[in-house]
């Protein structure tokens, strides 16, 4: 006979004001299994938990029902109280009478009370069918996988490796460095991006605990926290990295010229190339979509000039496997294509460029040797108009959110423009200046005062051509007048968006993503680096737009999380997993098909007691099982059950009202 204790919480006034709590307590007493039913102001407080502990011992309770706030809030708290009293913590059920009753039926106390009664009845009925469960412990593979070799991935990999935990760093492009490598100088200190980034890149390459796999992608991830198995596709580079010395003879002699994506297609690179001079690893790869040898079997000059014989046109993609315990996603960001701004003539006017194109132009190692030019005629511009919020904060054409970094880098661009072209002038159309950060407002002031950039508050409405100038029309709300600026060059601060591959990567990794394609963190405030999937973490812009300091901070936080995860030899896991009753399993294996985690395998068991003949049944890997219950619902013979949510428990709830 079950002996249930019911503990009803006032939650201060939160519950008591809208539910007749004493009546609820009395109602619960009418159920014959209920041995004690009491109320208290704050069940979650120490005295409240003490009440539960005492009642368990005194009344020899077999299960406990707490009627309080959502189980998502305090289930863990109360479970701990149960185990402190020597009871199996999973004999607890929480009736959610706050979020589900008192807070949502504040105008009808009677109905709210009735509902609370029912919710408690359901919880009591369920708790009677509860079973004793025990935490599962699983072993851990102490190796981390970092996806993406931008500054976020680099920082995370270095921090984890410094804790002497092996790291596999996978980068999609031929070199690590990411977006930061494309930048000229960085706000708010104007230190050169290359100067602070390249030493870290070299550290990655030489770190004994880091395995760098460039020009490759993660294509599959199986397993679960502590025990992931990743498949990594190494794209064919057609260059044997082990023998290549990076002398560069091949790239010099290659006759095929291709738009250079690292320089935003402003200049050309070769079909065999290293993305930029400081690339790590500094080994070239062949772009198979443009190499005439690979396309038509003609040329092969690179192979002829290579003294080491490192060129191998027969190389194919290779899939390698790595067992890892944790994953850090650091896939960075893309920039929004401003095509929808038809009123600006984007696409029609060559002298409208994006901010990253400008960044490459002013970069000393960039395609124009650090001098901004007009793409239409190659002249150095004097009047440059910068327009912020292109795509950002624009529901109609772009995205709703603020891209966070544009205010700062536009101020930087104004300063850089002044550095490179002394007799130039920068006009900046803005809506708001968002400069919250250490040294940021001071930096904007520098742009406004030292550089004397003209800030005009208003969104630009139209750009049209007049002679060889572009007329930029917008309101300056400060003076309440429409102004037109004669521009030589217009720079659009395009929005930061999630990489377009993010959703497919998220699905592959089994983590969720938001409507913009950014990876979702487990909690926006309290768990900002974890995903909802245990053992997978987020660093940098893959989660939301961020500047470099924030990105680095989050990457280091990821590293701390990974190190924490790997601190012990095993992991503890909730016991809410599926179990199979072999007696009923007919071995149809449909459950294997629906399991999203490949947690179900088959095994051969004796046909009967002592029988030599075997039959096939399903078997659940409880380390892998996440407890979704898909298999339970499709098992026709009810051979599978999900601990904590068994059929009897749920049916008890249904019929309890």
């Amino acid at each position, binding site marked *: 006979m079950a002996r249930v204790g019911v503990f009803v919480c006032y939650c201060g006034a939160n519950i008591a004001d809208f539910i007749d709590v004493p009546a609820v307590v009395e109602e619960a007493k009418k159920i014959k299994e209920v041995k004690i039913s009491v109320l208290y102001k704050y069940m979650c407080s120490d005295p409240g938990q003490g009440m539960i502990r005492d009642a368990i011992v005194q009344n020899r309770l077999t299960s406990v029902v707490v009627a309080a706030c959502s189980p998502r809030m305090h289930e863990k708290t109360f479970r701990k109280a149960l185990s402190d009293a020597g009871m199996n913590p999973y004999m607890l059920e929480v009736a959610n009478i706050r979020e589900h009753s008192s807070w949502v039926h504040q105008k009808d106390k009677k109905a709210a009370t009735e509902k609370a009664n029912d919710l408690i009845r359901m919880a009591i009925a369920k708790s009677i069918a509860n079973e004793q469960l025990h935490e599962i412990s699983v072993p851990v593979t102490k190796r981390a996988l970092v996806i993406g070799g931008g500054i976020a991935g680099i920082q995370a990999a270095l921090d984890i490796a410094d804790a002497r935990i092996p790291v596999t760093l996978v980068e999609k492009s031929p070199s690590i460095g990411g977006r930061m490598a494309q930048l000229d100088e960085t706000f708010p200190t104007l230190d050169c991006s290359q100067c602070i980034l390249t030493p870290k890149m070299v550290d990655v390459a030489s770190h004994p605990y880091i395995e760098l796999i460039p020009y490759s992608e993660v294509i599959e991830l199986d397993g679960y926290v502590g025990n992931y198995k990743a498949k990594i596709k190494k794209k064919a580079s057609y260059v044997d990295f082990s023998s290549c010395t990076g002398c560069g003879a091949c790239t010099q002699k290659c006759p095929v010229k291709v738009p250079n994506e690292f320089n935003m297609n402003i200049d050309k690179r070769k079909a065999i190339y290293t993305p930029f001079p400081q690339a790590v690893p500094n080994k070239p790869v062949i772009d198979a979509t443009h190499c005439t040898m690979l396309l038509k079997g003609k040329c092969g000059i690179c192979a002829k000039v290579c003294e080491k014989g490192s060129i191998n046109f027969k190389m194919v993609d290779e899939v390698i496997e790595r067992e890892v315990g944790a994953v850090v996603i650091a896939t960075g960001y893309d920039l929004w294509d401003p095509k929808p701004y038809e*009123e600006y003539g984007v696409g029609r006017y060559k002298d409208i460029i994006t901010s990253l194109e400008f960044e490459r132009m002013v970069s000393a190692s960039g395609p124009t040797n650090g001098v901004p030019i007009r793409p239409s005629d190659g002249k150095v511009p004097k009047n440059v108009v910068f327009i912020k*919020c292109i795509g950002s*904060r*624009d*529901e*109609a*054409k772009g995205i709703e959110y603020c891209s966070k970094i544009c205010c700062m880098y536009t101020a930087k661009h104004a300063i850089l423009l002044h550095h490179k072209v002394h007799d130039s002038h920068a006009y900046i159309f803005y*809506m708001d200046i968002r400069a919250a950060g250490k040294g940021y407002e001071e930096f904007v002031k520098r742009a406004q005062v030292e550089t004397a950039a003209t800030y005009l*508050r*208003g*969104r*630009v*409405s*139209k750009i049209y051509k007049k002679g060889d100038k572009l007329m930029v*029309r*917008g*309101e*300056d*709300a400060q003076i*309440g*007048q*429409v*102004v037109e600026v004669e521009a030589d060059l217009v720079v659009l601060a395009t929005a930061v968006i999630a990489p377009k591959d993010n959703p497919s990567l998220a699905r592959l990794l089994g983590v969720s993503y938001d409507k913009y394609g950014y990876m979702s963190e487990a909690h926006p405030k309290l768990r900002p680096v974890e995903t909802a999937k245990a053992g997978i973490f987020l660093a940098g812009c893959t989660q939301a737009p961020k500047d470099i300091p924030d990105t680095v901070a989050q990457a280091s936080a990821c590293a701390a999380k990974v190190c924490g995860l790997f601190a012990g030899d095993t992991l503890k896991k909730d016991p809410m997993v599926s179990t199979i009753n072999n007696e009923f399993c007919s071995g149809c294996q449909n459950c294997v098909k629906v399991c999203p985690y490949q947690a179900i395998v088959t095994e051969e068991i004796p046909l009967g007691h002592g029988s030599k003949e075997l039959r096939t049944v399903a078997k659940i890997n409880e380390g892998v099982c996440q407890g979704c219950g898909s298999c339970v619902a499709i098992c026709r013979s009810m051979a599978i059950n999900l601990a904590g949510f068994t059929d009897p428990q749920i049916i008890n709830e249904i019929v309890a009202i």
Partner: protein
Amino acid sequence: MITLGLLEKNTFLEAVNKKSGANVLECYQCGKCVSTCPVSSYMDFPPREIMQMIKLGLKEESYMANSMWFCLTCSACSGRCPREIDIPAVMEAIRHLAIEENYRSENKKVKDIRKFHDIFLDMIKRYGRNYELRMMAEFNIRTRNLFKDMHLAPKALLKGKIPIGHESTKSAKAIQRMFKLAGKLEKEKR
């Protein structure tokens, strides 16, 4: 100086939102409408400022402004608005509210514009269709500016640009009935 009290219930904002179907609160004052608007420089308050005035509940000031009378309903602003606010509908809503509540601007231009529209509607009421020369003439008579555009008239007439005769719908009665019933509907609404 305007003193802003406790805005307990901004009835003006509610009325404008209801009539226009837009939500003025969405405006974040980027000013793209102002530089888009071909006539914003003629307005007392350009669209952006009107939006803010509605938010502040400045009813009289809005009604007495000439902005909504200058709005050409060309929809350029709403097409470019990053928050997709139907600004012409907001302008139209203020205009209709001002008419309903009998606010009359003393601004000469506004008076002219209103007069023109009155004549136009009168023309339709009488003939069912519109007749440009007659309209132009009547407008000039009513605005006591007999010779406005007269230098254009001979040339236009000479070139057959503006025909002398005019036509009307056969069932002018139906149109008159429509005017009467529509007017009644307008009153019922209030």
